[in-house]
């Protein structure tokens, strides 16, 4: 079986690179952390890779808008290479700061193959502060998003100060109609959070936590699936474990929803490209 090669960006204040690479490895890929400048200087090219990851962090300190400067730098030096990467059927995922970068580059929402226009924004949380908390998420089953296929609800942590999704009504309409809204903040029972804090942690319009392009191959989300790569990452894992023991259930290792999301991407490449 050929390797699925994942490139995880590092440098300039990005900081989730190690755990994101680790999570993709658990999902069956071969992941490499590559400094943004190594790509720009062409010491490394995108050619051999199948999945490009814009990970979490504070690129350029989040000064002048989260993800803004990273987007400018990537677009200036690698814009065409990345568009070519997408057109050739490969996957791009942006997590948190990576999602902020994708929308500022215009890779999302990518209406009608326009991967250059800024149509949506991720702005300061309504709560006025950075917030770390776990959220319930609901997948839009009709979305073409490759990464969320077969998933329905899950919990991941959010950790951001600028995660409020915003777009004008005409853009919202298109996103909705084209099922590009892949992931929404939800209540514990899976119904939409309807703006309720803290279930919707940032005031995102329409509870949006993640969107994809029309192909489903470019995906951005604020929550951190890579932070749920081990059962003990879940805030209630000690309860889950004790209740399972009492119920006489085996304590088998299970694939966390975080790894599951990445495995969807890895499997897609296996089935479509390799």
């Amino acid at each position, binding site marked *: 079986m050929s390797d699925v090669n994942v490139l995880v960006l*590092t*440098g*300039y*204040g990005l*900081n*989730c690179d*190690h*755990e994101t690479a*680790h999570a993709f490895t658990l999902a069956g890929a071969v992941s490499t952390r590559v*400094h943004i*400048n*190594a790509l720009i*200087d062409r010491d490394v090219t995108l050619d051999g890779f199948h999945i490009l990851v814009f990970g*979490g*962090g*504070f690129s*350029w*300190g*989040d*000064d*002048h808008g989260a993800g*803004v*400067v990273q987007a*400018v*730098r990537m677009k*200036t030096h690698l814009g065409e290479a990345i568009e070519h990467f997408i057109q050739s059927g490969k996957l791009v995922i942006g997590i948190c700061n990576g999602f902020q970068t994708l929308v500022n580059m215009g890779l999302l929402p990518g209406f009608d193959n326009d991967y250059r226009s*800024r*149509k949506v*924004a991720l*702005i*300061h*949380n*309504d*709560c*006025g*502060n*950075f*917030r*770390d*908390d*776990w959220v319930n998420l609901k997948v839009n089953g009709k979305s073409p998003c490759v990464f969320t296929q077969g998933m329905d609800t899950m919990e991941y*942590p959010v*950790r951001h100060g600028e995660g409020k999704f*915003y777009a*004008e009504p005409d853009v919202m309409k298109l996103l909705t109609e084209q099922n590009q809204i892949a992931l929404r903040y939800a209540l514990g029972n899976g119904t939409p959070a309807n703006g309720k804090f803290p279930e919707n942690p940032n*005031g995102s319009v329409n509870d949006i936590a993640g969107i994809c392009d029309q192909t489903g191959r470019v995906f951005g989300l604020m929550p951190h699936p*890579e*932070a749920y790569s*081990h059962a*003990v*990452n879940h*805030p*209630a894992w*000690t*309860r889950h*474990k*004790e*209740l399972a*023991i*009492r119920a006489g259930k085996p304590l088998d290792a299970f694939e966390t929803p975080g790894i599951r999301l990445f495995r969807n991407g890895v499997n897609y490449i296996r089935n479509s490209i390799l």
Partner: protein
Amino acid sequence: MQKRLEIRLKPHLNDPEGEGLRKKAGAYFGMAIESVRTIQIVTLDADLTDAQFIQVKDDLFTNPVTQESSFEPLSTPFDWCIWVGFRPGVRDNAGSTAVEAIEDILDLKIRDGEAVYTSKRYCITGEGLTEEDMVTLASQLLANDIIQQYSVFSKDAWDSAKGVGFRIPKVKLDHTPTVSTMSVESDEVLKTLSDERNLALRAQDIPVIRNYFLRDEVKKDRETMGLTDPTDVELEYISQSRSDHCNHNTFQGIFRYTDISTGETLVENNLFKTYIKEPTLYLKDKKDWVVSVLWDNAGIGRFDENHNYVITGETHNSPSNMEAYGGAITGIVGVYRDPLGTGLGSKLVMGSYGFCVADRDYNGDYQPNLHPRRLLDGVIEGVKDGGNKSGIPTPFGQIYFEKGYLGKSLVFVTALGIMPATVNGKPSHEKRTTRGDLILMCGGRVGKDGIHGVTASSEVFSENTPAGHVQIGDPYTQKKMHDFILEARDEDLIVFITDNGGGGLSSSIGESAEISNGCHVELEKVPLKYDGLDQWEIWISESQERMTVVIRPESLNRFMELSRKHAVESTVIGTYTDTGKLHITYHGKTCAYVNMDLLSEGFPQWEFDAEWQTPERRGLFEPVTREPKDYNRLILDILNRPNICSKEWVSRQYDHEVQGGSVIKPLMGKERDVASDASVVRPVLTSERGLAFSQALLPTYSAIDAYHMTTCTIDEAVRRLIAVGADPDQIGGVDNFCWPDIQFHPENNPDGKFKAAQLVRSCRALKDMCMAYEIPLLSGKDSMYVDGHLKGRYGETLKVSALETMQFSASAVITDVNHAMSLDTKMEGDLVYVLGETADHLGGSEYYEHLGKVGLNVPQVKAAHYIHRYKALARAIETGLVASVHGVYRGGLAVHLPMVAMAGCLGMTVRLADILWEGEDVKRRDDRILFSETPGRFIITVAPSKKADFEKLFSGLGAKHVGDVTGENDALVIMGSNGEMKAELTVSSMKQAYKKRFGDER
């Protein structure tokens, strides 16, 4: 050309920053503001074409979806407008990032002298707001005079064409760098010169310094370099090295300790050696997991066979008291450089915080530099940006309110790192400098920042403390440097590394040159932020985000290649030698030439008189109380007290899961809203091993006896670790002493002798506990002079000193994180145990404090007795015998039974009659059982099926079945000793009390 770009959110979008200010103005000053809209200002002082200005405006600074911008003043309506910008020379992180980004988009270089500056203006509307209100807002909430400037504009005075004008806070030093010399003709002359220059040389050190420079062979030696009298560079070097901050003169001093009741006097020759170094070395020999202690920037313990972990703790008190945000961010970013500079460099894996401040709602007459509320807001935000932007989780911390911190607040920051045990086959914890090695400065540049910071933190805070030592840390620059250094380490390019913190190059190079026995530094090579710095300023500047890295000459090309890749500035500034000389030149001319062994010249030890008076002699006694009747209200009121209640508002601002290794989070339980005992992280993602970490602070016990304050603090930190499943045989400690001035002075410090005795006793306790629990001290620091002179309403000043405070941090490995434990009850029908006896220990307790009393019966630790139960509990957790574990800490059972019940969202019935009581039966009373703070205790829940095994394991160790876990809709019911119901509290009422105080803070 200068252009000023104004950027705002589109008017229909919510402005959370403006909204935050509106709310704060209401909460702080009762000001009724209708709305606040913020405008970001980017002032570009650079020679760009019009097209280029427009390109950066559109592509970089304006989000077309949400923002509007203009090079003309925007027309946002207001009644009042406040502009806030930095003062010259203050670090403008966003301005620097803007320069990087502009260079990138336009593919050009911003020239020396050109720059980008960021500032803000706030457009405020509201009826009846006055100019005075605006000055209050600007000076109390928006700008700190030390680093920022502001202007207030009224609607009428606003010139819509001119706007705020052009404010360019550019540093202009019209100064030619000059080396000056100081006369050593007499002690008096040198002392006067030293004081004039703020050198803070101690009178006792001056004859030693003079003696050195007057020696014939020294004079002859110096003549060969064209030197006569000592230069300012040399004296600054000596002053830095001799400061209490660098040299720990207090802990290495002589203490004459007299117990007034017995009249016995004992001379302590060196507290550090006797109570810290010796026990730690003894334990290092005994514990094979201890890798490196007592010399490097941080201590090192073994994590697993391939990795070691690194830990250290610091305080950043004085700067935080002047500029809370800047001081705290500089503190946390600074402590992160310690593990990075330990061994050959370690990756940062977590940080923690401790804030000690006065009452947040203080409204008394004495005015600290910053009101406690503003100070706390600032330090919380500083640690937030410093930790989050560094990509390092902050999963633990504590906040303690006590009136003594009005004089000076405390900001503790702790850092843990992880490193491979070997680099290219060599142990990573060993490093040395050798003749011919290159000295490089990596990271930030040098400015006038922080000059005399080290000496200022060794002095009592007063109006005359130089403000120039306040800085703003830059986690972004440091994160780039962190990633770069780890890559260079892994390629085996680094032979020595240390950070530039207190004392700057003077400390980092001075100390590392002791290993090779000499160095030659060329100061003109040091990259500067701006021209005009004197040589001595370059040498001692504390500009942040810099490491001193040592490499072999043959590694230079590769090292610089990596440096460029990571966009980090690195510069060769000298070489190590073995000449026995610290040699500094500036453009070839010598400005310092001193013997490396000058600092071992026999400087006199500091001396202190210490007089111990027992609490009884000091007139302390137990308050006379009868049992309360309304326990429900009492318990709820105590759950709501500032030092007990939920600090979720702070924990959630801190990223505690980045790096993906989170196991036990700061908030746990069914609704993840109750503070956990300790944090557990998995720093190596491919391993199931974990690292547990906890901290404790119990300053109120110092009001009775700092010996017991210290033992209880350490016991609490240890129990916190045990509660989450740590291995009791692998606990390491970090001591952080924060003490008021202990040097007796009949007028200025009349109780200095008592405070000195408290320090001696605390050190004795530290050793006693470390030996009993076998805790080597992996690291530690002391910060003295926790005093402040506050202005009162009549213009008088009053000295306010903090209680003697020690923060103790503890770390330990958890062999398998899958066995880690949390505090929440898990299932109805489980049995509730209290492990450990309860005694009459209400002195200094939360309950007495609530009643406005201190008391006498301070809790006492029986460490040799407790250690057996801790080991048994560790076994019980590891073998799955228990369902939940929680230590009994401040507030006693009355606080910690509710914590367990709230976390599990289940009821609980507890029978006080079954609690084991230690001491006379006549003292046994239900309120004492509930509020006593006897250490050594835990609340444990156990499944009925495990009862027999559990009780067998704890046979003879004081585990007592005292109650049962009840259902989801049941309350916490406390049955009195006579069988009557004392309290009945629903989970929701307890949560309301626990959370309401700070619940809405954002």
